[in-house]
């Protein structure tokens, strides 16, 4: 095998050929490196022998980023430690972690403050002592899937509901160590290396200089996880965040922790008139600064929940939503004091009155019991849709989940929602829509009755990609591009810029072994 770390893929490793997107791939070997050096060893072996590599974390991605097309799978789940901790003058804490650390485990470690400090150096031990004495901290990115790994989250620039206030994971990464396709590594620290215009110069750990010509496009100003992060005078570290496994293997990540707000409350506002939604969202954006998330559920989603509650005992604890409710907006309040939180509730109550809604049609969660209830409700929607799709697949096995992940600038929210609704009606397709309306980022899920509708749904999806692009939006706001949306990326940027992205990749991965099939479609004859 060359490197002893590579194992042949047999039935024991079959499940590594697929991920949450349901796409099934192909590969010959797999490795489970336990350190940066082992990653380097495997990469060097693959580089020398021209073997394509797909990097995996927990395989929870929805864009098939971790599904291999051929060659070797590098699974980083065994690298799940926290290597170091430091603090700065302002009392912020930074953790250096390995990419295979799962988000739920990371959250538990931050909450309990019980880090395994074997291997910590003096300064980490010192910082750890301070950490234990400090107020409670948290890591803000909150994708729905908490069993995702940190590495995967970095690779697709993950977000979640709270990114409305705190930004995507990009805002919280202060350091990265990346292994390039030839085994060289880059140690990047935010704020240390900036491009000059669109020319970026990086220095590998062994001292080699790499000059990169960055593409000339301008990214949409919306929430975005499509294609490479590129802008004038950009920070070098940002190139690798959201790069979908195509530029290098992330072997170490330094994340910044924030102080946990003293008061976190959830409020679900139930609206009778679906037309009041955009006005309400505009108000929340303009007037309520202590809101971390603004989430939306349309009447179809609510109807699905009503049905689930009747048909499925697992959902019997869902709160009741009356038939006259046609939309729900969830907000999460993050505040230093209850006084501020109550003030936000007052503002919301008075606005609801102004738009002709009833502030008693709402649920406020202030303790863990109630927050769990709201959490359950919010996640019951995507879960129910998944279950409905799974049921359809029994009769029509080619159907997969068809959920959009597109965002538009603020001023286009109303228009895009009308566009989604009218086109679905026109094409006679059933759907359910929910999502991060605060960022104009909605997941429109088309629910096909049969294969014919599935195909028409995919076509509609592609049409929307163009419309969203014309509005200055992004085709993938948080899931990444992976294998499934490379076509959409082309619609978004056009052939010229896609070609510039390919050139950029080629500068870092000249023999094309990293993440092949992700972001850029594989041409005929490209498979080795």
């Amino acid at each position: 095998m060359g490197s002893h770390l590579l194992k042949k893929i047999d039935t024991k490793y079959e499940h590594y050929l697929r991920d949450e997107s349901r796409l099934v791939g192909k590969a010959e070997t797999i490795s489970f490196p336990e350190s940066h050096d082992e990653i380097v060893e495997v990469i060097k072996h693959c580089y020398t022998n021209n073997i394509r590599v797909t990097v995996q974390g927990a395989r929870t991605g929805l864009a098939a980023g971790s599904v291999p097309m051929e060659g070797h799978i590098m699974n980083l789940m065994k690298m799940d430690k926290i290597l170091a901790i430091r603090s700065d003058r302002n009392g912020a804490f930074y953790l250096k972690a390995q990419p295979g650390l799962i988000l739920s485990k990371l959250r538990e470690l931050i909450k309990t403050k019980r880090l395994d400090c074997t291997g910590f150096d003096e300064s980490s031990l010192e910082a750890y002592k301070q950490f234990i004495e400090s107020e409670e901290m948290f890591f803000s990115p909150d994708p729905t899937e908490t069993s995702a790994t940190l590495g995967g989250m970095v690779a697709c620039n993950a977000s979640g509901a709270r990114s409305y206030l705190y930004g995507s994971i990009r805002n919280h990464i202060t350091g990265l160590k990346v292994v390039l396709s030839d085994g060289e590594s880059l140690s990047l620290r935010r704020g240390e290396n900036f491009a000059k215009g669109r020319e970026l110069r990086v220095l590998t750990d062994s001292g080699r200089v790499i000059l990169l010509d960055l593409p000339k496009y301008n990214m949409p100003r919306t929430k975005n996880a499509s294609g490479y992060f590129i802008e004038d005078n950009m920070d070098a570290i940002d190139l690798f965040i959201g790069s979908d496994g195509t530029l290098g293997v992330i072997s170490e990540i330094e994340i910044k922790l924030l102080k946990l707000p003293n008061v976190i409350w959830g409020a679900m506002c139930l609206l009778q008139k679906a037309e009041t939604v955009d006005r309400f969202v505009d108000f929340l954006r303009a007037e309520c600064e202590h809101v971390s998330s603004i989430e939306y559920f349309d009447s179809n989603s609510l109807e699905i929940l009503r049905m689930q509650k009747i048909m499925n005992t697992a959902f019997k604890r869902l709160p009741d939503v009356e038939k006259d409710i046609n939309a729900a907006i969830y907000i999460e309040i993050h505040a230093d004091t209850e006084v501020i939180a109550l003030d936000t509730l007052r503002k919301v109550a008075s606005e609801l009155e102004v738009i002709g809604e009833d502030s008693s049609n709402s649920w406020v969660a202030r303790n863990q019991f109630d927050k769990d209830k709201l959490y359950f409700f919010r996640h019951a929607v995507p879960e129910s849709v998944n279950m409905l799709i799974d049921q359809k697949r029994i009769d029509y096995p080619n159907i997969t989940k068809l959920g959009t992940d597109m965002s538009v600038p603020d001023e286009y929210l109303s228009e895009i929602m009308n566009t989604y609704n009218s086109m679905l009606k026109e094409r006679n397709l059933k759907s359910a829509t929910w999502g991060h309306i605060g960022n104009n980022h909605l997941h429109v899920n088309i629910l096909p009755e049969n294969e014919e509708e599935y195909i028409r749904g995919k076509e509609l999806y592609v049409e929307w990609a163009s419309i969203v692009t014309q509005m200055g939006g992004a085709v993938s706001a948080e899931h990444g591009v992976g294998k499934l949306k490379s076509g959409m990326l082309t619609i978004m940027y056009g052939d010229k810029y896609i070609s510039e992205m390919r050139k950029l990749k080629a500068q870092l991965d000249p023999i094309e072994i990293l993440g092949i099939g992700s972001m850029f479609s594989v041409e005929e004859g490209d498979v080795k």
Partner: protein
Amino acid sequence: MRIVVCIKQVPSSNEVKMDPVTKTIIRDGKQSVINPYDSFAVEETIRIKRETGAETIAISMGIPSAEEIIRDSIARGIDRGMLLSDRNFAGSDTLATSYTLSLGIRELGKVDMILCGKLAIDGDTAQIGPELAEHLQIPHITDVDEFLEIHEDKVICKKSDEKHSTVLEVRLPALFTLNKDINNPRLPSISGVLDSLNKKVDICDSQKLKAEASMLGTAGSPTQVVRTFIPQSSKNTVMIEGKLEHKVSRIIEIIREES
């Protein structure tokens, strides 16, 4: 009709661990919350209120911060509240607590139904309900699953024990302790939360209740904790180490040996 619901403030996390060396508590949660069993009692009280128009009062014996859980119950639909708070109540076991609660309830005049959660998750005794009923000299029913009919002078309810489900007719006034999960506690609404800030919560101390000092706090508590400890064990635990595959094959070996 007047209904009283008894609620208790408990530590939010049930994971109270003790550091074996320093004997200090390693706390997982900071806040105190309403005893989960009492949430179901509060919800049931609100349900009955909506059906019958009854007046509802939440009562709690606790430290001053327990007023929070009373206000929270009001936010969900209870009409008003009463907090029994006094340094002299400290150290109360269930006998002293139920005595104190009975004084508070007597202050309210005629009461038709008293609802309690079956037990509190910090003490886990399930004793307050029956003891309170005895102090008030009214009948009590434990383990209620459902109220089938509510009338001015009697209720029909269903209770369960290990082997039976029983439907009972109970003449009021009476006290009922409720099982968990008999209903789906509603969340307060935004208007409920904002309105509750202005509602009345009576605070009563031992003087206002005209309590007998010998029946309060430690004086009125026949039981006393004399020792808390981490359970020790005499077992010689064998640690199985190594890689996952080895550990598991050893486990399977032991299973085969034992069965």
